[in-house]
């Protein structure tokens, strides 16, 4: 954890509840623990918050300019009301991820794609993992997008321009699920080292409503 304040667990009972129930609609599943184990884990999590946070040394204002400019990050990500929602929302990314993770995400986006599946995915109302999907329709139209939802008979996508699509699987000639692939490009050859640090500093500063 990057910061001592947990947005979804502002007090002890909320933290205990999050450990037990997970974060509905989010990636974190519930856990089955005894009350003692729950208390021990909560105490450990709070100790993490007392560890000195690693501060990035880039310039966050410069990073913000890069985000909306040279990086074109807003084409796929939202921060507050701005941007597009193809990939994850980044409004609070600085609360969830530290500088090292964010740096890796920029240089090697596919390295950090979640690589396993919560085994208790009984409620699959909205699947996780922003799976990249490519389809070919019955009339030959090709479309790439991010999976929004899927069931026995249908699949729903968002394309890179933000458009929403719903297909019956029977209407598709081809359906490819690109496990481990990301539509996000690597910035290894696009940004200088200084620019990379500035962008990381900006992302770390994104903490939603938190004043920390």
């Amino acid at each position, binding site marked *: 954890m990057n910061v001592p304040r947990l947005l979804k667990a502002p007090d002890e009972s909320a933290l205990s509840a999050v450990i037990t129930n997970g974060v509905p609609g989010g990636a974190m599943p519930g856990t089955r623990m005894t009350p003692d184990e729950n208390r021990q884990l909560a105490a450990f999590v709070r100790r993490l918050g007392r560890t000195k946070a690693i501060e990035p040394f880039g310039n966050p204002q410069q990073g913000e300019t890069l985000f909306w400019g040279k990086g074109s990050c807003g084409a796929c990500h939202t921060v507050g009301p701005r941007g597009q929602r193809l990939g994850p929302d980044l409004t609070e990314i600085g609360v969830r991820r530290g500088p090292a993770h964010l740096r890796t995400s920029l240089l090697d986006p596919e390295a950090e794609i979640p690589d*396993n599946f919560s085994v208790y995915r009984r409620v699959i109302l909205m699947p996780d993992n922003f799976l990249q999907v490519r389809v070919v329709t019955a009339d030959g139209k090709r479309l790439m997008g991010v999976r929004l939802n899927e069931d026995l008979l249908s699949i729903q996508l968002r394309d890179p321009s933000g458009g929403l699509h719903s297909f019956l699987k029977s209407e598709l000639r081809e359906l490819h699920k690109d496990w481990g692939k990301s539509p996000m490009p690597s910035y290894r050859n696009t940004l200088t080292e200084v620019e990379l640090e500035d962008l990381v500093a900006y992302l770390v500063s994104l903490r939603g409503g938190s004043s920390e």
Partner: protein
Amino acid sequence: MPSPHWTKQNAGDKNRHRWALSHLQGLNVRVTSTCALAIFLFLALNLRTPAQVTSARLRLATAEPANWLTYSGNTQGHRFSPLAQITTDNVQRLKPVWLYQIQDLNAFQTSPIVVDGVMYISEPPSHATALDTRTGRPLWVYRRPIPSDVGVCCGQVNKGLALLGDTLFLGTVDAHLVALDARSGHVRWDVKVADYTTGHSITAAPLIVKDQVVVGISGGEYGIRGFLDAYDPKSGARRWRFSTVPGPGNPGNQTWAGESWKTGSAGTWVTGSYDPALNLLYWGTGNPGPDYNGTVREGDNLYSNCLLALDPDTGQLKWHFQFTPHDVHDWDANHVPVLIDAAIQGVLRKLVVVANRNAFFYVLDRQTGEFLLGKPYAKQTWAKGLDRKGRPIVLPGTEPTTQGTAVYPGLHGATNWASPTYAPKTGLLYVAAREEGTITYRATSAYKPGAYFTAGGMKGIPGVEPSGSVKAIEAITGQIRWEFPLHSPPWAGLLSTAGGLVFGGTNEGNVFALHAESGKLLWSFQTGGPIIANPISYSSGGKQHVAIAAGRTLLAFAIE
């Protein structure tokens, strides 16, 4: 204005008259005979006939296909409906005719009972409701307060009720067995089966066997010592208890190292089956405790992961078959045992077939427990095969480790508690199959009463999205006739019908009907909520209906 549907009920008029009069007399109302007749007519037009389900009716349950009298539809565990109004030709016209919604947020897992126009369902955590099958409107509700410190591994849920005479039986998550008046939901008796503070609970539907109520216990992840109980339906007195983990001096105790039997688990949390002709009760048992660390309980760990055959009059064990000796993967054998009579090599035999969580399909002689056949029906990476007695030949390096071991099937098994269904015409056992490997970890865990006692954990295999299917398995040979793919590993069970259909559900909310012979998808409906329950079929107003719980809703479908 009374519904014409109700006025057509002629059976039991005399009983209704007596019931109405006794009800009025109980209210200290003076009645003349003319007045009584008028009152009777009024009541007859407006009240339900109280259900009277005898054990004889239960033994011949499939003789009254308009009803669904017991958990699996019949005592043989088939979950098959003899109704044939809905067919492969007209199922495309199947539509929801009413919905009933629950309020609780725990999973809705009920398998309804239908008797003479009334549907009885359980609701999470441990409630019961009677619904009018024509309109879906509640007739009465029973709401049980549940202590706030109940611990259950997998949700405060309930899989269904049992009915004998005019009494409903409900197991509760605080480990009680409750008897309710089927006419009103009034509590007749309430007995404590076990101590919930030590991890015991009841989530399974009880089973009526002859003149008693048989109920299983949950708590396999809490180091309980499992058992199966039989109770007197009138008084709630316990008639017998069979301990699934034998104590010192009893056969099987020697299969537990040291004192590990005391926390051996082996729960009985899925409803069993009964053969009236052989007078044998068949029931599955769950994992040994702690789940993932077998080093603290060396030995085969009887009678965990078994199919038991018991004398229902005494609870005495007649035979057992252990699917996964010394299980370290949490492969509970809690399945509905499916009893069939079929010819093997030209000889008619009484069989029991089980698609087990460990990915093997078994055919046993249900008189003796003799192993006749076993073969994989899903991906498995843990066993070379089964020996001639059906014991698995375990491959080295497949048990959980501290670093984690990937194995198929995973924790939840190649199938789980969802009911299979057997269709006599096709001779196929239809199974809700799961393709979901896991990486399983071993840890150490000290036993504390009421605390989780699994000694390990698991996670999914990287880069692999689990999937599922409906598999049609030839019940005698174990050959897979066809597979229908599902998007994710199913928790919903299956129903087959004489109309040539197999009904099921998905985690994504699809209810579907397949052609029983070919597996072709013929119909589906998006219910909007995960389906973690078993479907049933019954008749209302002369029309065949199919009902299933999905999300927070019970849906009834029919062709209008």
